[in-house]
């Protein structure tokens, strides 16, 4: 995992900088997401791992599968990847591209897991509070999880704010244990 993301970093950076100058961040993000999803299909994975398929054939196959999702530069990008036999990095590249894009747009994906349904007012309150705290534009997704018993868990990247009853009970249990 760690090694793959290291390999993917220069490609993601190059693609991002190119897309930025071209002014097409959204389009590139979608193309890469499609290509990444395709590269994760089990038969495509087998195709990419096969030594009997040449790099050129691999690139052609991927470009054909993706079809309209790729513009000309996108196709060139896949060809470059295939020349270095790095097509299996596509999911990582797509992920890193999105991180770079979010950083540039000062946006952050926040996942809120709540024990009860949150109404619109509560959601807006959360978004406002989080935007000031994280100093980012917040894209919030809400999930329901009854097993939290109460409260909510907020996840923004690596940062986790656990305000659930279950989390508090776990803390209490640990402090009684020690």
């Amino acid at each position, binding site marked *: 995992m*760690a090694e793959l993301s290291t390999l993917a970093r220069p490609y993601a950076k190059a693609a991002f900088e190119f897309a930025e100058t071209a002014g097409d961040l959204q389009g590139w993000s979608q193309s890469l997401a499609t290509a990444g999803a395709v590269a994760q299909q089990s038969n495509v994975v087998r195709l990419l791992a096969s030594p009997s398929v040449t790099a050129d054939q691999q690139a052609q196959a991927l470009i054909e599968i993706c079809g309209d999702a790729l513009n000309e530069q996108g196709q060139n990008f896949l060809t470059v990847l295939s020349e270095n036999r790095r097509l299996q990095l596509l999911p990582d590249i797509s992920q890193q591209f999105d991180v770079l894009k979010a950083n540039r747009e000062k946006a952050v994906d926040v996942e809120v897991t709540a024990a009860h349904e949150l109404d619109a007012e509560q959601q807006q309150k959360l978004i406002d509070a989080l935007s000031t705290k994280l100093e980012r534009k917040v894209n919030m997704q809400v999930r329901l999880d009854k097993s939290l018993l109460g409260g909510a868990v907020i996840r923004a990247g690596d940062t986790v704010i656990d305000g659930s009853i279950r989390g508090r009970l776990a803390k209490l249990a640990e402090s009684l244990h020690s």
Partner: protein
Amino acid sequence: MQQLNPSEISEIIKSRIDNLNVSSEAQNEGTIVSVSDGIIRIHGLDDVMYGEMIEFDGGVYGMALNLERDSVGAVVLGDYQGLAEGQKARCTGRVLEVPVGPELEGRVVDALGNPIDGKGPINAALTDAIEKVAPGVIERQSVDQPVQIGLKAIDAMVPIGRGQRELIIGDRQIGKTAIAVDAIINQKGSGIKCIYVAIGQKAASVAAVVRKLEEHGAMEHTIVVAATASDPAAMQFLAPFAGCSMGEYYRDRGQDALIIYDDLTKQAWAYRQISLLLKRPPGREAYPGDVFYLHSRLLERAARVNPTYVEKFTNGEVKGKTGSLTALPVIETQAGDVSAFVPTNVISITDGQIFLEADMFNAGVRPAMNAGISVSRVGGAAQTKIIKKLSGGIRTALAQYRELAAFSQFASDLDEATKAQLDHGERVTELMKQKQYSPQSIAEMGVMVYAADNGYLQAVEVSKIGDFESALLSYMKAEHADLMAQINASGDYNDDIAAGFKAALDKFIATQTW
């Protein structure tokens, strides 16, 4: 069976519930990517610090050792069997701490300070970080008070002072631990607290040491920190640092402590294992590049600190007292090879070494100390007056004896002077032998060294010197208890004491035949 005290337990629970910090602070979280050989790789954890404790599911803790671009390498402190890929790992914002204080005395604990002797929980009031920076130059004081080991050979020839680091080095099964245990036993009543750190030893050996200490009443002033061979490498690597923090408690409060690391070779092995698994590049003998720093930062914390430091540390509670932590690290050599990597490192870090030799051990000289290469670089200033005055001749006598002994094997007839020197050397060598678990007081050593210096042993057969010694010591104890007590109290040497020794020895020789 342990008594269950309902009110007490409710009290604890109540106070814990009351004090529980339930504020939902933002935490840094990561995902376990791989678990292998006690090394955990974690994706995420962007804000983790070097050496920080990491919490895993199920209350298991780890320590972050490698901070890389995409992942964090950590060692697990404890059982890693329950951990799996995909589980969460959380930052705690704390560095590793162990309990310290007088509550630990008489106990056997693991590298994290948890009791393992079955005597119930340790209610230590304080905890302290295991990695700390050693006191600086301004805060130190030179070594000038002795630590009596109780072995004639060591106290006479390689004296150890409070705050010194003296290495005990030698092959396996040669009496390194025996010296360490004798040193602990001899601290009974001296006010020096002892910490015995066992690293990578058999649990049975640790149990044997603890039993011996208990038998000789030395466990009351001793803390045993054990990371046995079956403990994870991380624990063996951390145990000396944990023990050191427990010793620093006394040093910083104007008291004296003695710590024994038995042995640092095994700690270096454990650290090598961790480093290789973390994929740090191997160097000489496959040790990582910072194995020198591993031992130097540990041994630098053994020091004598001045009263100003103690006063500042205790906020003025303890005034005018110096504190000290004396370290006796142990290193095991392979077939007497002191030029291997770790032995040379530790020799260069310490203030001297006690070198134990297999040939001498096999010849029956125990402790098997080689007086020629064993040195103490700072202990001379700390030696008790009487021993310093009397033992000057011992080192030279032994040095000359070694030289002549080799030479005399080839020469058939020797002149009188040479014969006398050989004779004297042989007797001094015999005198330096000492049984295990029978440390001697300053006065006892003084009278024996006086007897050797002044030719009282000349008339005694070499094989009878041991008997002569025990007879003389019991005679001195019975007839001259006052003189002995006076010497033990002051450690002084003057004409009166010399006259007292002379009178006593003359009378002893006159009344007994040897």
